């Protein structure tokens, strides 16, 4: 069938639509066509919107789930506890930092003004002192009002036993609100994944570009080194390193970067190897254009197609890696909100089914959204689909 393809391509070139005297378009025609293909994939577009909405919402996690009120009016003074840490002395207490959930403080404020809470009155590390039963405790809407309000002196009638103090997804085994931890955990996972993806893409593209463009000994040596490097069992090494160094967010990022940058080297290198023999690259060399300019101006755009196609999948992979490390207890520092830790709690407390189910659904929804977006991006950059309308 090769021959047929070669035979029928040529007659159509002269038919390429050429609308004359058009101003320079904002998007090049090929990108417009890609956007069209992307938009045609409804599943991908929906996934992108859902993911973006979740991402933007969780960026403002402090305004959604917080154990400090958003605005407080106390004795005629307008305070913003969500932004400023006020000492408790301000409200007649003695602690260095105010605990607004303390009935003493909240009564004091309500008596002398008012306060507006976030929809969820817990942060990721807030331990709910009002729980009377055993932790992990059930989602509040599965409890009777009496169970829910057992802690409060006035029982069901107590004004503190309200919807803001609901645990929508229950609590974990330390009495922390699962939904609050989920919101913060989603944010940290996605941010971690994004930063790791961008950094490893930068390193990977740089390395692949140099290998592909220079070729020869540079390429040969670097390829062998990468082969050795990628055959190192990275998960074990990660476990060893993170048991020696106490892993903070950035340390963990650095360790994972050591191994994830190789993902893109292969395709970028292949694109550069292929494209450096194009005649327009030879033409640029004949014009005296410098190597750096040729690489960035002529070759990189070619490699970007493959790179952008891979990125959502790398992002999904990064989220998975972080979750796996957290699950094993070698990830983010103890107490950080993390999806892996939620899963591991679910494993330890099988009777508290809301932990495992929440963790499972969150991780699978994130990964599914990312894969759907990735598929749509891949379609958009697929030359067969991009040019399908023209053949």
């Amino acid at each position, binding site marked *: 069938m*090769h*021959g*047929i*393809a*070669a*035979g*029928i391509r*040529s*007659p*159509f*070139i*002269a*038919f*390429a*639509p*050429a609308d*004359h*005297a*058009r*101003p*320079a378009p904002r998007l*090049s*025609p*090929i990108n417009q*066509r890609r956007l069209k293909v992307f938009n045609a994939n409804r599943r991908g577009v929906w996934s992108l919107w859902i993911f973006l909405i979740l991402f933007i919402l969780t960026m403002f996690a402090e305004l959604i789930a917080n154990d400090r009120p958003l605005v407080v009016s106390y004795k005629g003074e307008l305070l913003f506890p969500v932004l400023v840490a006020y000492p408790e002395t301000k409200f007649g207490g003695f602690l260095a930092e105010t605990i607004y959930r303390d009935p003493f403080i909240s009564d004091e404020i309500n008596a002398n003004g008012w306060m507006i809470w976030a929809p969820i009155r817990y942060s990721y590390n807030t331990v709910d002192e009002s729980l009377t039963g055993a932790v992990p405790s059930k989602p509040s809407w599965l409890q009777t009002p009496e169970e829910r309000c057992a802690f409060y002196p006035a029982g069901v009638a107590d004004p503190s036993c309200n919807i803001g103090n609901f645990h929508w997804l229950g609590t974990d085994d330390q009495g922390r609100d699962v939904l609050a931890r989920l919101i913060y955990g989603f944010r940290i996972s996605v941010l971690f994944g994004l930063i790791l993806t961008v950094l490893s893409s930068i390193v990977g593209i740089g390395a692949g570009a140099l290998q592909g463009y220079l070729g020869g000994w540079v390429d040969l040596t670097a390829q062998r080194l990468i082969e050795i490097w990628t055959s190192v069992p990275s998960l074990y090494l990660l476990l060893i390193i993170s048991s020696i160094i106490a892993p903070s967010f950035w340390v963990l990022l650095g360790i994972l970067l050591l191994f994830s940058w190789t993902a893109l080297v292969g395709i970028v290198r292949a694109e550069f190897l292929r494209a450096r023999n*194009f*005649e*327009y690259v*030879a*033409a*640029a*060399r*004949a*014009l*005296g*254009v*410098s190597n750096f300019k040729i690489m960035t*101006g*002529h070759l990189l*755009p070619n490699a970007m197609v493959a790179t952008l196609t891979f990125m959502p999948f790398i992002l999904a992979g990064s989220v998975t890696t972080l979750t796996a490390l957290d699950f094993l207890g070698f990830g983010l520092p103890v107490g950080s909100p993390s999806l892996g830790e939620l899963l591991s709690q679910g494993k330890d407390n099988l009777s508290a089914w809301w932990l495992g189910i929440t963790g499972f659904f969150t991780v699978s929804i994130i990964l599914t959204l990312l894969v759907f977006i990735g598929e749509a991006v891949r379609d958009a950059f697929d030359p067969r689909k991009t040019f*399908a*309308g*023209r*053949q």
Partner: protein
Amino acid sequence: MSGPLLQVDDLHVDFATEHGQMHAVRGVSFDIQPGQTVALVGESGSGKSVTALSVLRLLPYPAASHPKGRILFNGVDLLGADGRGIRAVRGNAISMIFQEPMSSLNPLHTVERQVSEALILHRGMRRAAARVRTIELLTEVGIPNPESRLDDFPHQLSGGQRQRVMIAMALANEPQLLIADEPTTALDVTVQAQILELLMSLQKKRGMAILFITHDLQIVRRMAEITHVMTEGKIVESGTTEALFANPQHPYTRKLLAAEPKGDPPSPAADAPVLVSAEKLRVWFPIKRGFLRRIVGHVKAVDDIDITIRRGETLGLVGESGSGKTTLGRALLRLIGSEGRIVYLGKDIEKLSWGAMRPLRKDMQIVFQDPFGSLSPRMSVAEIIAEGLAVHAPQLSPAERDAKVVQALTEVGLDPEARFRYPHEFSGGQRQRVAIARAMVLEPKFVVLDEPTSALDMSVQAQVVDLLRDLQRRHNLTYLFISHDLRVVRALANELMVMRNGKVVEHGPARDIFAAPQSDYTKALMAAAFAVEAAPSPEVAQ
């Protein structure tokens, strides 16, 4: 059986595109009698290949459709046939050979497997019988020692041999009709002549009909009995080849016939200063074998060549593919490594570093063969042309740079408004003009033209040749014109150099060589190019 073998009746072909239906073929009718050779002639985009592919329903359906028309083969409508019916015809009663023999053969199958596939499929032959028949076929298409070639892969064959294998595959089931879609366009002139000769002798022997698709009028004149001229999806003129060439009626036919590159080459003063010269120029590519990659020999692409180009002249460099002419051109511009002395305006440049060469790049430019590959698809025409200006005239303001781009586009005969568009929106000829503008905007002194016309339609070739000559006169340019097409070279070059296997075979004033070629190789080239005749001598490639 009486009546035509193939009857195409009011054929329409539409393609669904994002801009709506595109009518590629609009009402084509013609007949082919048994044993007849019929040619469809036209330029790219005329619908001739689409017409031919419709016969076997090889178009990309469902994007393609036939709103109207019938194709009757021995009285059976092929357009209405079901999948089984059409497959019984394909490769059996009607065979097809394509333009590009490398991509038409499966690179992972041996010659035997490819040829015998059709035999086993349609004839139900056993392997051993198919093997015998394959050897017979390969002998028939003129492959020497066919037994030893059976286990070869396509990349081990030369271009001409690959096309011969393609023909053997097509002939395997003794077709009544052979559709040849530009079968020689990708081949050297001498090989082209041999393949055409082979097709004619096979046709005579087997009495099969041939539908010949080509843009090359010389081939038509030599091959076809009946010629149909196509443009914009319609047949505009038909007739016996002789009558059509003697007395063309339709203006388009006349334009095609008049499209041969014409005009006289420049005649610079004999004492014009030498612009570029090289002594004992040598480009050898090492052949490495074995585990330690020892160098066991060299491919001598350019082998001790002396060359002198005077200011204002055009040196034509001709030779078949693989003769080293492109390598020589690139070595002179120091785009690839070479040994030997290269002098530009009295200055030795062979030792200059890449950086030290940069100021000289402004003076020495190159235009490439493939106008589709030599322009970056991601840059607008303005960006493509201004790229060199950014290197060599960084002091220019954006407005001045834009003015230069406009001037260059006007000079090559393009609308300056075109500078905001992207290469894919242009035709081949227009793209080649953009490539020329990119070189010209730097106001070079010396331009290497590496087959700038060979990817273009005949009428466009003539226009580009006129443009190049016009630019040369206006700016006193010096050209090194590399081509395998002697007709174009004759219109442009005043000096001629014939290369073969990295060596110069003949060198002298173009007029003298065209009038009386000295070496056998040059004679064979000229016979193949001007009369489409295969040389009897063993001089030329297979």
